[in-house]
Structures are given as structure tokens and as C-alpha cells.
């Protein structure tokens, strides 16, 4: 599978070649390493994403505060 044949502008390419050399890499091996690192990064979990996921479930809202009610029903007053 070919993934890394990406066209970039001249200045970016030159800077990238310089950065690769400084790190003891060829441009291709540095690019491979960056892609590998990015793929290994866990996705950032946020509350925003969580609520989008919750929306996707189509959960029917209950018309009361669940925990407050369950504590009252548990009997300790």
C-alpha cells in the first residue's frame, strides 16, 4: 500500500529534508516514523465526543434525576 507519496511545496520539502538529516534520517524514513507515531497515538477522548456518542444511541431521557431518585427509593432517609 502506498501512503507517503505526497506532493508538497518546495520550501516545505527543503525544510523537511534538512530536518530529516539533522535527526539522522532520510526524508522517507522520517516520514515513515512520523506516520507510525501518529497512528500509534490514542485518539483524544473528550466529553464533547462522549456526548455525541451518547446522542447516537438515541437513549430516551427519563423525566427525573436518576441517582437522586434511586437514593430516595433505597430507603435511607
Amino acid at each position, binding site marked *: 500500500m502506498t501512503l507517503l507519496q505526497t506532493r508538497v511545496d518546495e520550501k516545505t520539502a527543503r525544510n523537511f529534508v534538512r530536518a530529516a538529516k539533522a535527526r539522522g534520517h532520510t526524508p522517507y524514513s522520517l516520514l515513515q516514523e512520523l506516520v507510525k507515531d501518529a497512528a500509534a497515538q490514542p485518539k483524544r477522548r473528550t466529553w*464533547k465526543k*462522549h456526548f455525541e*456518542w451518547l446522542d447516537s444511541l438515541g437513549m430516551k431521557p*427519563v423525566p427525573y434525576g*436518576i*441517582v*437522586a431518585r434511586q437514593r430516595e427509593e433505597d430507603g435511607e432517609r
Partner: protein
Amino acid sequence: MSYADTSFIAAAYAVDVNTPDARRYMAEEEPRLPFTFLHWPEVAKALWTNHPALAEAVWEELKDALADGQTLYRAELDADAVAQRAAGLMRHYAHRWPKLRAIDVMHVSAAVECHAKTFLSFDTRSYQRVLAHTQKLKVWPALTSEETAKLK
């Protein structure tokens, strides 16, 4: 750092009347919340009694969130220290508020043991949020007028 009572965490995982407020707070603050030994059974009951068909999926999501530790994390709390602090609070306040419940005192104690500054709770019909206020925790949402009256 914030500590969320189960009423708050359940509102983020099982849709109830408080979910819109929980969502608003989470969107604005993106808090990383401690999840303690007190939360497990209450969240489980909230899910399986109110949303049984979806409970398993939500439970897996909750466990994944805890494994990531980015939105919820497993607080390293000494259960005995939490209970002893709770006992001290109960000794001090039970006479003043006879309806003060053990679970409420335990959550406030856990919040203090976690060094929380803010206490998130929707349980306005108990003495929990009032007790949190006495422990110098900032309570969110703000105390209701009925709760403030309990402080007098």
C-alpha cells in the same frame, strides 16, 4: 480539580433531566473526573434500572473511558480513610441534620480526600451539597435557596 457525585456522572452516561446541564458543564470545562469505589454500584444501578437495553454498551464505554483516563480516571483513594473522614463528618453533622445519609457523607469525604475544589452534584433534595459547602467545596450548580436555608 472537580469531584462529581454519582448524580452528575450518571447524568453524563444515562440520559435524565440533568443531562443537558451536565453536558453544558462538560463542554465548557472538559474536566477530568475521579471515579471512585463509591461510583461503581450507583452507576450500575442507574444504568440497569433506567436504560437496561443500552446498559451493557454504556458500561463498556465507561470502562473504556476509565482505561484511557482522559475524561474519567480511577482515583487512588484509601477507602478506610474516606470512611473514617465520613464518620467524623457524620459525628459532627448528624445531630444538626438527622436526614443526612451515609452515601452523601461518603461522597463529600471522597471529594475532600481527592483534594477537589469543586463538587458537582444534582442531588438537591438531600443534605449532600449543603455538606459539601461546609467543607469549603465550591458546589456546582450553585446551592438552591432551600439548600442555603439548611445552612442557617
